[in-house]
């Protein structure tokens, strides 16, 4: 139920069995079926979720009703609207399940309590957010500096598992491209192999 959560945690910060048991008291195991929401726009993000099994995504809907995927999360990844989670103000994003999922949720109150009482949790969160910041920076830099073909190649190289689990039109949405443009990029890359 918490295997992946603690595997990921221990990769960043090593825990004793006793410390794992303390943290377990604060975790919420949650199953979500495909297409069910963890969060909908306008609600406050009350938990951050680690994916034990399945795939989640976050997206926002622009004023024209167009969906823009902002993140994917596979097994071992964490997803949530960090701004809404920290500010406890309504979120502009939606988070739903692309497959049947098993999640481990950390609520805001559990998160705050763990930050206060367990220095190893604070270290884990710091490293988690640093990684997320670096990924975000890489994504922005790629958008600014790379050609479309290289951006797609960088995406596939960085996240090979996502491309196998998520439909192409969602990857196009994540990259800010139309499905047709992504299709042309893929055709070009296949013919140039």
């Amino acid at each position, binding site marked *: *139920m918490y295997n992946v959560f603690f595997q990921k945690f221990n990769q960043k910060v090593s825990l004793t069995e006793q410390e794992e048991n303390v943290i*377990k008291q604060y*975790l919420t*195991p949650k199953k*979500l079926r495909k297409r069910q929401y963890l969060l909908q726009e306008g*609600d406050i993000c009350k938990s951050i979720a680690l994916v034990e099994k399945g795939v989640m995504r976050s997206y926002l809907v622009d004023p024209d009703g167009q969906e823009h995927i902002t993140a994917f999360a596979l097994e071992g990844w964490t997803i949530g609207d960090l701004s809404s989670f920290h500010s406890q103000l309504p979120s502009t994003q939606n988070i739903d399940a692309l497959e049947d999922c098993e999640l481990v*949720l950390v609520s805001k109150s559990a998160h705050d309590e763990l930050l206060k009482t367990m220095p190893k949790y604070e270290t884990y969160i710091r490293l988690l957010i640093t990684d997320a910041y670096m990924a975000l920076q890489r994504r922005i830099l790629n958008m600014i500096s790379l050609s479309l073909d290289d951006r797609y190649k960088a995406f596939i190289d960085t996240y090979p598992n996502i491309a196998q689990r998520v439909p192409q039109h969602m990857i196009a949405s994540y990259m800010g491209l139309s499905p047709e443009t992504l299709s042309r990029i893929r055709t070009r890359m296949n013919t140039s192999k």
Partner: protein
Amino acid sequence: MLVVLCIKIDTKMNTKQTIAIIGATGNMGSGISKNLSAGNYRLLLFANELSKLQTLETEILAKNPTADIELSECPTEASWEADVIILALPYPAQQQIAEKIREVANQKIVISIANPLNETYDGLVTAPDTSAAEELQKLLPNSKVVKAFNTVFAADFVQPVIAEKQADAFIAGDDQDALQTASELVVTAGFNPIIAGGLHVSRTLENMSLLLIQLNMKNGYKWLAGWKILHQ
């Protein structure tokens, strides 16, 4: 002294919450299931007898074809999927079910509706310094136990407004977010929520229910009765 607190109840949440109702086909469980099916909830209904569950499902869908309900074959699975778990079970069944859901109910809201009545309905089987809800909290130490729906009768779910007064439904618990969520459920079920205090106030709420049951039998209210706080 019963401390009555008032809070603002906002039920406009977009994200659909999943509610597991364990013991959905009992008198109370079916009333709760039917009334909550009208809200923005996904209901996972569990009971021991599948045929009774199917009858309940038919009844709910006949009244509300868009109700988001699903029959569950396992209380543990239902509770794992749920955000909120309602134990619509008699007090003696509490311990056994708590053992089945303990792990998956970690950090979740668990609503205790049980009144620990003795066999002759003239007393409670719990000691004076505890309550069914507090005993449940001991069994589920990492869950957020809330007492709710124990002061209303099953018939009140069909008719929550009695003699032109909306019946009050008292709530007790120690977690503010859990009290807010329970209040929203009470509103959706048709009652006026009153947060009475911390979980220890369940002792008073369970005794209020005992008194109402005794008065019902003595005065022939036909189980259509409820508590109402009158105030300015």
